[in-house]
């Protein structure tokens, strides 16, 4: 959606949550955007970068979230409005700067958007990034709908300038990726005068007074929160049973109460400013309630805030029974989904039928339509080749070697699609840091070789310090950078190695080999499609010591598909494929597992699924009978 077009001003359009956030930022006169891709946040910067092609604003993909926040802060210090986006893990990375920045304070409005991924559907963790607002003493806004997101972003900039500090806006996957009608406002003229006033420095000293000041800012934000429309009570009169809820969970709760016909028994308090909480509103609403149910994603963040508030005012309020994550009425982990909410409410209010019906309806809708699927690399994915080569090299090496993994598509190396090679995965760059440690264990008697894999984008994000550490301490580290020339997992965003910026301008690529060579590391490049040669080189590198790098270079198959495709049309020679008779035990489909290969049960032979096979040709070297052949396109 071209949300930057002025013709759209004041009209109603269908927007994705992230697009609504981007549009809100533009309407708020944001001229600087920075971020690091991470699901579900990526579309905000992507949308802004697209807008930057026709509006006088600057947008970048930064090398990581901390740098993104720093870059955006430069704009704020110079009096401009800036937005910085990331996913929950990203806020961990940015947090060191954040907790200092919030002491010095900001100037131009600075809004930090974190898009959390409840249930970790596309993440390595489940994390509630809202806690950072408490840690850094800054306001936290939680929209429920794209429309609200658009408004909230605008208000967040206003608030940030009022209190001269960062404001965090928190979305979750469901909001970021849902689509809804959004009534737009108007775009400003983006005229700005960046100026850093040398008389007003930004630093954290003296620390205690600055820390005190930070709390004063927060108090100011609380006054705003008390009156702002994002916190609202739904229900005609005071109720004995009140649901306190935020974000998407609020919508689910609303819908469930409606569907189950509970409005005469239940009221809902929607919280839009989750920190600092609107205390007066909460105390008023809950005064006469004796049951309070908390529905939010993911941790009991509002729940604990409200409980603390109520115990501070215990004298004036009625004793209560609490239901939520703390009481285990809602599971301690996982997304707060409609199913959980309905189950609780229908059980509690004796409405089993309604719940049962809901479940039956869903089941009927899905029946027979959703085949079981496992996580898998795409047909033609170079990672499959690289992992296969690593698998061979480690088997040849025979010292029980393993792979230390990192974040990206190749995280799937923990599953059969990557031959279960990867034995540990945590945070961006951490696989490399771990390996710099394994590489020193030899001196303590450790005999197993470790292969570290890291993507090209991850290399720049957080692997570099770990690589330097390995070099500095002369660690026996074998790093394989899986260079597919894109931040593929999150949608092909450019990174320093690609030679292109977020706004599409050409930039000199930063060479991964160049960096490592300059540190004196031994460097080789392999082609993941040449499995045997790659395995041999990895095997040879396993026998060496010191920090060393192999770059496994092949374009992401999806990118290659768009940029000219692949050379082969694969076919199975049915005379050569011996099917069940062969001793291979369906090696191509059972072990190699490229989805482009299927086992035809009737013919009892392997077959190419021509619809999805891209024709990369790797599998030709997998079949022991040479039955998979590379034909001409």
């Amino acid at each position, binding site marked *: 959606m071209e949300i930057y077009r002025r013709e759209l001003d004041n009209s109603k359009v269908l927007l994705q949550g992230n697009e609504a956030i981007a549009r809100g930022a533009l309407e708020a006169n944001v001229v600087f955007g920075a971020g690091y891709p991470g699901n579900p946040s990526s579309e905000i910067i992507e949308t802004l970068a697209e807008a930057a092609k026709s509006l006088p604003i600057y947008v970048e993909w930064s090398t990581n979230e901390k740098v993104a926040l720093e870059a955006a802060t430069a704009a704020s210090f110079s009096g401009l409005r800036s937005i910085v986006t990331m996913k929950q893990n990203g806020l961990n990375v940015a947090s060191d700067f954040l907790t200092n920045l919030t002491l010095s304070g900001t100037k131009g409005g600075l809004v930090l958007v974190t898009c959390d991924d409840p249930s970790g559907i596309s993440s390595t963790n489940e994390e509630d990034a809202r806690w950072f607002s408490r840690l850094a003493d800054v306001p936290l806004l939680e929209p429920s709908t794209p429309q609200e997101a658009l408004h909230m972003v605008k208000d967040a900039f206003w608030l940030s300038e009022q209190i001269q500090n960062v404001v965090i806006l928190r979305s979750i996957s469901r909001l970021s990726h849902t689509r809804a009608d959004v009534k737009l406002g108007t775009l400003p003229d983006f005229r700005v005068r960046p100026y850093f006033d040398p008389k007003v420095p930004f630093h954290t000293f003296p620390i205690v007074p600055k820390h005190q000041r930070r709390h004063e800012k927060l108090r100011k934000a609380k006054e705003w929160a008390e009156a702002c429309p994002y916190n609202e009570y739904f229900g005609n009169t005071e109720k004995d049973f009140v649901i306190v809820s935020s974000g998407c969970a609020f919508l689910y709760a609303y819908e469930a109460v409606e569907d189950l016909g509970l409005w005469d028994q239940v009221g809902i308090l929607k919280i839009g400013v989750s920190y600092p909480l609107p205390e007066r509103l909460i105390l008023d609403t809950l005064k006469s309630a004796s049951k309070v149910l908390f529905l939010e994603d993911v941790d009991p963040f509002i729940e604990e805030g409200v409980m603390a508030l109520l115990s501070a005012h215990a004298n004036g309020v009625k004793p209560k029974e609490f239901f939520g994550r703390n009481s285990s009425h809602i599971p301690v982990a996982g997304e707060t989904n409609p199913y959980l909410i309905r189950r609780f409410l229908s059980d509690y209010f004796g409405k089993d039928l309604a719940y049962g019906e809901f479940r039956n309806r869903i089941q009927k809708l899905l029946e027979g339509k959703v085949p079981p699927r496992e996580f898998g690399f795409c047909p033609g994915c170079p990672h499959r080749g690289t992992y296969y080569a690593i*698998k*061979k090299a480690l*088997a*040849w090496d*025979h010292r029980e070697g393993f792979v230390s993994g990192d974040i990206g598509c190749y995280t799937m190396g923990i599953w059969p699609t990557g*031959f279960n090679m990867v034995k540990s995965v945590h945070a961006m760059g951490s696989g490399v840091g771990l390996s710099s440690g394994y590489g020193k264990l030899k001196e303590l008697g450790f005999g197993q070789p470790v292969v570290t894999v890291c993507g090209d984008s991850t290399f720049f994000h957080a692997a570099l310090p770990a690589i330097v550490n390995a070099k500095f301490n002369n660690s026996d580290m074998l790093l394989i950078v899986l260079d597919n020339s894109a931040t593929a997992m999150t949608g092909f965003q450019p990174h320093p190695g690609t030679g292109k910026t977020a706004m599409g301008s050409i930039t000199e690529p930063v060479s991964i080999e160049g960096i490592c060579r300059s540190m004196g590391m031994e460097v080789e490049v392999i082609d993941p499609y040449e499995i045997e040669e790659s395995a041999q080189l990895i*095997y040879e590198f396993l026998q060496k010591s010191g920090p060393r790098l192999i770059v496994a270079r092949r374009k992401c198959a999806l990118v290659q598909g768009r940029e000219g495709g692949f050379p082969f049309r694969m076919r199975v020679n049915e005379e050569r494929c011996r099917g069940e008779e062969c*001793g*291979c*035990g369906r*090696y191509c489909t*059972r*072990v190699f597992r490229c989805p482009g290969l299927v086992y035809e049960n009737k013919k009892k032979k392997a077959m190419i699924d021509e619809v999805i096979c891209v024709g990369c040709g790797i599998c030709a070297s*997998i*079949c*022991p*009978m040479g039955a998979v052949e590379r034909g001409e396109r």
Partner: protein
Amino acid sequence: MQDHKSAFEAIYGEVISQGLCVACGACVGYCPYLEYKDGKVVIIDSCKVGTGRCEAVCPQMDILRNGPGKAALEEGGGYFLSKALPKEFTKNAQYGGVVSAMVSYLLSTGRAEKAVLTDRGGKGSPKGVLVHSPLEVISLGGSRYTASASLSALNRLLKDGQPQRVVVVGLPCQMRAVSLMEKRSEIRSEQVFKIGLFCTWAMEYREMSKLLEKEGVLETPIRFDIPPPPKNIFLVEGQRGKWEIPLDRMRVAIQKGCALCPDMTGSYADISVGAAEGIEGHNTVCVRDTRGFELLEELTQKGILKVEALPEANLSHLKTAIKNKRERATTKLKERVSHGDI
């Protein structure tokens, strides 16, 4: 579901994971699960096929399940002293060049189209090669004292399914493996000429390389030898020098599985060839069947081989060595059975 082991579980559980594999290569190069790399037969993935060839052609499995098998002496045959006369066969040869001469002859007369030999290694361990020109045969003379899984080269031929007449040069374990392949009708006896090398044990490549490195051998050696007792040394020759390493220092590199092997002289071969103790530049040759006799005779007539009777002292030494190896292996096998290892 399965109440008995799959082939793979058997060969992995009873042989490979027990450290009893002797890297003959009979199971290598046929399926995608087993590969040979630098002295080791390794598992690429776990196979789920119920019955398999790997188990059926494994000579170690055969010993574990069926006992020592054929005994060299009782089978009869004849022992001779021999050497190749043309210089080309002896210049690279380990001793008398009898093996190289026989292989070259079989290839040049078309009685074999391909020979399964062991290359010299270099970047990695020596391994199996398919050779068809006598010149190549000559270039590959000499013994590498590490197991080479050279039967993988034979497997390549078998897998392609082309009828071939082939000569296989190999250690006693490899001769046993080829005879198991014959039993399974994978290859007909007339198709394959088996030349065995005498062998007491072979070393594991990686261990040997490590030891040699420690001894200062920093190159791929050209020649190895183990001169007859009582010398007790391992001789290594390279471009940059000669090393005499006490044999006892090398013993840790010996494959554990060799202790189970009862067969010193390749009882399953058509002809076997070994050293001739104390008689430099000569081989002891043991002929086991008519094919072997005919070849030896033909080569003598053509003036390619000189063949004499084996001196009595050599014969009696050899017989003792053969007997000792068989006895040691039988004891070892019994020990394993009583330990419940098999």
